[in-house]
């Protein structure tokens, strides 16, 4: 069959959406519980944590960097949030402080990478270990409950509440992606992020403060890891010291599945939503089919590999 040029372009542009739809339809054929509203909302809620982290990761990867510290940041910020609430700090202040802490951890990553000229992989690997250690020290290795103050009840709603039947984390996710989209598409920060990922030297010589861009994107990533930490902690009404382990890899997988190039400069946040959904749906489908978690990991890895290989062929 001869494809016209515009058809082909359409296919390439929306390949990940098409992939997602085809993938969902196949699952729906094999499992009639999959396409129920309850299950779809469930998938979206479960996906929200990875999506929020992956939104921040998209910024980083677009600049040609990587952030391995997000999982640890999620754990530490969650623990701080829980202990703030249990000591009676008002909800809004606790939330702001926690997000600020996340942003600060990210900012430190940015400083080490920009000023210290350390490879992002190494800098954030070290930060990942440091923050995990800090979390274990802070929590003494034990979960921290959010406590009995009224603020803790309000906070619980962030993880499990619903508006018009839709879970609260989904609203948070949508809001964050709208913001991320706006930043990347319509502001100079977004423009600089693509420029930096495309050609750092040329960006510098264009009179742009490249270091500042790095501080900002790593701070965004840290702040969003903190938001994910809030959702996780709210849902359980407690913070786990080992929370978020390995989440950085799921986030990177979502970004890459969404078509963003690890070399930087190409891709975007819409693709990341699709990528996160593909991972979420896959997990859900395997659960529905009663596949044990060991096999789930195996399947997830294979799907990511296949998707990336197909993606490469399109280019």
């Amino acid at each position: 069959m001869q494809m016209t040029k515009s058809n082909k372009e359409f296919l390439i542009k929306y390949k990940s959406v098409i992939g997602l739809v085809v993938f969902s339809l196949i699952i729906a054929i094999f499992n009639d519980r999959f396409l129920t509203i309850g299950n779809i909302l469930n998938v979206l809620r479960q996906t929200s944590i990875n999506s929020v982290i992956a939104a921040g990761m998209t910024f980083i990867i677009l600049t040609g960097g990587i952030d391995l510290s997000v999982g640890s940041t999620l754990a530490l910020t969650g623990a701080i949030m829980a202990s703030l609430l249990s000591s009676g700090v008002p909800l809004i202040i606790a939330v702001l402080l926690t997000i600020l802490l996340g942003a600060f951890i990210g900012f430190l990553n940015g400083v080490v990478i920009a000023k210290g000229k350390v490879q992002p992989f190494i800098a954030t690997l070290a930060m990942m270990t440091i923050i995990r250690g800090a979390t274990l020290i802070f929590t003494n290795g034990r979960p921290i409950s959010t406590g009995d103050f009224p603020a803790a009840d309000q906070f619980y709603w962030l993880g499990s509440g619903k508006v018009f039947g839709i879970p609260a984390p989904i609203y948070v996710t949508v809001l964050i992606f709208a913001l991320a989209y706006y930043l990347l598409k319509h502001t100079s920060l977004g423009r600089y992020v693509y420029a930096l990922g495309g050609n750092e030297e040329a960006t510098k010589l264009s009179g742009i403060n490249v270091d500042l861009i790095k501080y900002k994107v790593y701070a965004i990533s840290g702040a969003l890891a903190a938001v994910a930490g809030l959702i996780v902690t709210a849902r359980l009404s407690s913070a786990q010291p080992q929370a978020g382990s390995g989440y950085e890899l799921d986030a990177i997988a979502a970004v890459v599945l969404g078509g963003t190039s690890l070399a930087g400069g190409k891709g975007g946040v819409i693709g990341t939503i699709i990528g996160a959904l593909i991972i979420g749906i896959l997990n859900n489908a395997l659960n529905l089919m009663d596949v044990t978690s060991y096999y789930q990991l195996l399947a997830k890895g294979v799907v990511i590999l296949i998707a990336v290989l197909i993606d490469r062929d399109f280019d």
Partner: protein
Amino acid sequence: MEEVIFRMENIRKEFPGVVALDDVNLNVYDSKIMALLGENGAGKSTLMKVMTGVYKRTQGHMYYKGKAVDYKHPKESQEDGIAIIHQELNLINELSIAENIFLGREFKNVFGKIKWAKMYEESRILLDQLGMTEDPKTLVGQLTIGKQQLVEIAKALSLDAKLIVLDEPTDALTDTETESLFTVMKNLRAQGKSMVYISHRLKEIFEICDDVTILRDGKFIAEEKVENIDEDRMIELMVGRKLEEQFPKVNHKSGNIVFEAKNLNNKYLENVSFNVKAGEILGISGLMGAGRTELAKSIYGSYKINQGEISLDGEKRVINSPKDAIKNKIAYVSEDRKKDGLILDLSVKKNIHISALDTIRRKFGYLDVKKEATEAKSYIESMSIKTPSIHQKTKNLSGGNQQKVAIAKALITNPKLLILDEPTRGVDVGAKKEIYELINKYKKKGMSIIMISSEIPEILGMSDRILVMHEGKVSGELSIEEATQEKIMALAVGIKGDAND
């Protein structure tokens, strides 16, 4: 009668939607050097890729040593003794010369152990042939580009190549390196090798080639003996029109001093002082490594200045970064537009505006894309940048048009001082003239312009005043009236001019 060793007849190559080559002929003669000449996009590289089997031709015939050939893979042409040396060298910097020459074809004993002694010995013989004294154990990364090219040639010789294609080999070479490359080429010719030589530099063709084939827009234009053709005729055949004047010199009275540098010192510079007036083009000449680009980048805040002063309009300015420079109305167009100038994956529009987003920023950081598009379009029009749309990725533009985008990107910041570093490097003849006209247009508007160039005719043709550099110092300043090619060269190599100078 000369014997044709490789003949290409009526070659046609189509890509989806484009005819890249149409009815092209090429003859490579035994023990001769054939120049392949044409503007960027004329189809030179495509033709070579068809020859060596990288591309499959749509129509036409190829004969090697009188036999019809049909290479489906570069490996097949390589086995037949055809080697191609690309502009971007295929060497591994971390490996030695010998390892590079025999990469994938190492001499091994039955246990798979590499016979190093034999590899070094064979490499030695090849290097001697090329007049290279380097130890075969030297890492390729430690060699100059010129020597690296010779290693590529050694590799070709080790494959027993009979026909060697050199794709713009001198673009990155210094004059002495170019000379030694030519010596090697002449020796190879004397040994019975045939060559195809692709270059932009017409002078080189007269120096080294026997015949010339000219392509234009994918079509065969002419094959001539070099001795029967002159430079003007070559240009005419290449661009399809007469270039009355290569350098459209504009006489314009310079104004007051706009920019002044006093005793600049840093890692690269030693007591550099000069000034530029309004509506003046200051040409900076010098050999490679004289510190011209370093001077530009130091003024532009990219390299730190340890000592000295920069002033604009009589006021002292401190410039610590390119950002400061742009704020102070200094703009710089790099000599390497792909590496330092453009973000190739971004669109033409986004590249033009990258240094001037402040001017289109609205509430909540929202970028006024409509205004951006209008401005980009006006630059594309006034500079006649050939692009299907403002949204085209810059990497899809030809060299000349990319260069214009790089200049537009500098102009949009509204500079008082514009520094152009090799503004016509890798740009074809037609686009060159357009760029010269553009530079003159802004000169007439009163902009101060510094033009760094390695091509002395360009310096002589465009500048109002000439500064010559040698080893990080200003070795002399010449008014355009007194300047000659010889005087510039003397200063560039560090020979003092007049004693009273």
